[in-house]
């Protein structure tokens, strides 16, 4: 601790965190992947998807919001937590209307990639088939709320990176929906295709029009390597 670092263990592996880092950030820096959806580097954490749930000294906590503290014993890749995360990813699938085979985001979608990582071929929960609105009012952008997982990454990116605050949520419970900054729809806002908010979407809920298949399916990000492989390094490796 004299050198200002915080020692903790993740699945028995000793790592060191810098002051102010969350468990997720410290693990990331040490080459340990903690699955997540609503977290995105460079944005404040939201702790909403709960996919990064770990056990800290036995207690469940969201790794993306929990600051690292000296001596923490963190469980991450355990059978119990893998099952819990599978359930959460499953919930996000059945809650919306996700048709991967028709989706322009297929292969670049973090939700889909996590499902593959967790071996989900069909959800164990029944589909809820909600009725959700599309917003095609913007000339260059499309919102398909059927694919929105309410992670809030667009909302935070719009505020924290674009300085615009164009996105937020209305409603509560199962009726919580992505909302935009004008009653007339996204086209009536200052949204721009170059906004960081657009790139922040992990699924196909926010899409740029007319570029969907610029990169063919099969040559996309998660077609090459499973999600998480960009982070994970074996213990001791640098």
């Amino acid at each position, binding site marked *: 601790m004299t050198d200002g670092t915080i020692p903790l263990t993740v699945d028995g592996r000793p790592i060191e965190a810098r002051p102010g880092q969350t468990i997720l950030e410290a693990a990331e820096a040490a080459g340990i992947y903690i699955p997540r959806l609503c977290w995105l580097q460079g944005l404040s954490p939201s702790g909403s998807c709960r996919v990064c749930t770990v056990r800290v000294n036995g207690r469940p906590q969201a790794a993306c919001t929990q600051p690292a503290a000296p001596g923490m014993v963190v469980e991450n890749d355990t059978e119990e937590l893998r099952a819990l995360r599978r359930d959460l990813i499953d919930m996000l699938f059945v809650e919306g209307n996700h048709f991967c085979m028709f989706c322009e985001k297929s292969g670049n979608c973090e939700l889909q990639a996590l499902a593959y990582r967790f071996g989900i071929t069909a959800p164990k929960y029944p589909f809820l088939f909600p009725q959700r609105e599309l917003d095609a009012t913007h000339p260059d952008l499309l919102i398909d709320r059927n694919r929105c997982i*309410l992670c809030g990454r667009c909302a935070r990116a719009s505020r924290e990176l674009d300085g615009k*605050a164009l996105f937020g949520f209305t409603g509560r419970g*199962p009726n919580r929906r992505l909302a935009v900054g004008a009653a007339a729809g996204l086209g009536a806002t200052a949204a721009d295709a170059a906004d960081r908010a657009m790139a922040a979407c992990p699924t196909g809920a926010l899409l740029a029009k007319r570029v969907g298949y610029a990169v063919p399916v099969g040559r996309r990000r998660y077609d090459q390597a499973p999600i998480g492989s960009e982070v994970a390094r074996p213990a001791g490796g640098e």
Partner: protein
Amino acid sequence: MTTSATPPLDEVLGSFEHDRSRLLDILLALQRRLGQLDDATIDGVAAGLGLPRVDVASVVSFYSFLGGQRRGRVVIRLCNDVPDLLMGADRVAAGLEEELGIRFGETTPDGRFTLEHASCIGMSDQAPAALINDVVVPNLGQGAARRLVREIRANPDAKDLRRLLVREYGDGQNAHALVRAAVKNNLRHAGEVVFAEREANAGLAKALAMSPAEVIREVKTARLRGRGGAGFPTGLKWEFTRAATSDQRYLICNADEGEPGTFKDRVVLTERPDLLFEGMTIAGYALGASKGILYLRGEYAYLLEYLEHVLAWRRAHGLLGRRVYGRPGFDFDIRIQLGAGAYVCGEETALIASAEGLRGDPKNRPPFPAQRGYLGQPTSVNNVETLCCVARILEMGSGWFASLGSRKSTGTKLLSISGDCTQRGVYELPLGTRLAAVLEQCGAEEARAVLVGGPSGRMVGEADFDRELCFDDLSTGGALVVFDGSRDLLEIASSYLDFFIHESCGYCTPCRVGNVLLKERLDRIRAGRGEAADLDYLQGLGETIRTASRCGLGQTSPNPVLSTLSAFRPLYEARLTRSTAGLQPGFDLGASLAEAGARVGARSLHFETVRDLR
């Protein structure tokens, strides 16, 4: 977008000095004036306060009492909590629909009436009950409900709905000129702490003669724990808040009692507001706070004028304001924040968000409110009953308080008892009292199950009646809902899931989605289409929701299912079906074929056969 800066908008924004943190008050005032918060109003508020438009729309859509739909001048909100349903709220609902010619969620064509359901309005001991605008109408029957509607219709110019609707005032301060409510206190047993005779402001006087640290030590020595349900040691919470460096700290009193079946704080607010404000003032002194907020649930708006009057009296008598009680250097005042219909706001971080004028989404912890709470300053949130105990501890001494109750659970506890018993109402009993003794006292001879702590607590059966109500055994925020052998506990569990689905903020996945799934499977079992594996499914799903949810609402939301599954498993097993004729019982082939047939406009040839199989 013509945001024609309407006079009411300017006036309301002006009266709150364009303060963003008062957004909830601003919207409540506009809702009252305009009957709706339409797109133009939302645009106008956003522009007037310099807020992102989406943030204002977000708040409007969050609270049950706000909305973009035009509501009638008279909004009837019938409580659909379980005790109301036990007492015949469905018949009242049918009567209201027939009398008004509209369904729930609708407004009459003349713009006169809107009919809605409300989650528990804090009147479970006098159910079925409804709110007609701010006026509480308890003990409703079908005939009485219809008469009230006809009465309002016959007096279209009535300015004062209370005068029209309240025939007989309730007991005690319910008859006060500023309350004039038909509500009854039903205070069945006054204990030694909250409802005992006392010397007003003696506790405050003693506290101000001590140092703040000594006051905190006194509360710690009394071993006072929070009465809202979580049971956190009050003195410790204050110590953390006081230790945080800041020149502004806040005390918030949580009077948002929304746990279905809880109504004890309503009786305290009616009969002991002075004791509560005294406790708040002592807390303010101990914390080094100059500002306190009473967060009053919107359903108790009928008490607002009365409580403001009590505060004004205390200000006039030097008990609030500058140099409280003549104590140099101690300034303290209290404002009342009215809620707007959202159970989750009883969660302390959601309550803080709501008091700041935001959506009532709970916040991430850390930071804890003691470090960064209201407007980013150190804040202590304490329950109504807790703060009353504080005043009495300072008046009578920590030794006196610690001698009441049991060793680890000192003092008394206010219980709100409703359901199948003869003496529904509020009881103040020593902590550590056996549940069986309480059931005897309230006339619940036929009790077969008791929901201890409301739906976020647990359903217990007769095997647990010998246990003690205290922090280390059957812990409770105070709600006890009694069920006799004639009640269908699975139907009740399903009804409470409806409540959690309605009141979830939707922020995190497990609570938002999980409870919908939990209810789907429970209802499938209730419909006789469940299979043995469904019980493991309920258990596993419930545990996922409990483990992964972000706040206390989500973590406790599966309890109605998990606790009945544990204490009343045979009730579930009796509803299960064995697979017949090679079909999965969970799959309703007949219904699926009927739905498909309806879509394509043709009937399946197999339809009749399938129906016979079922």
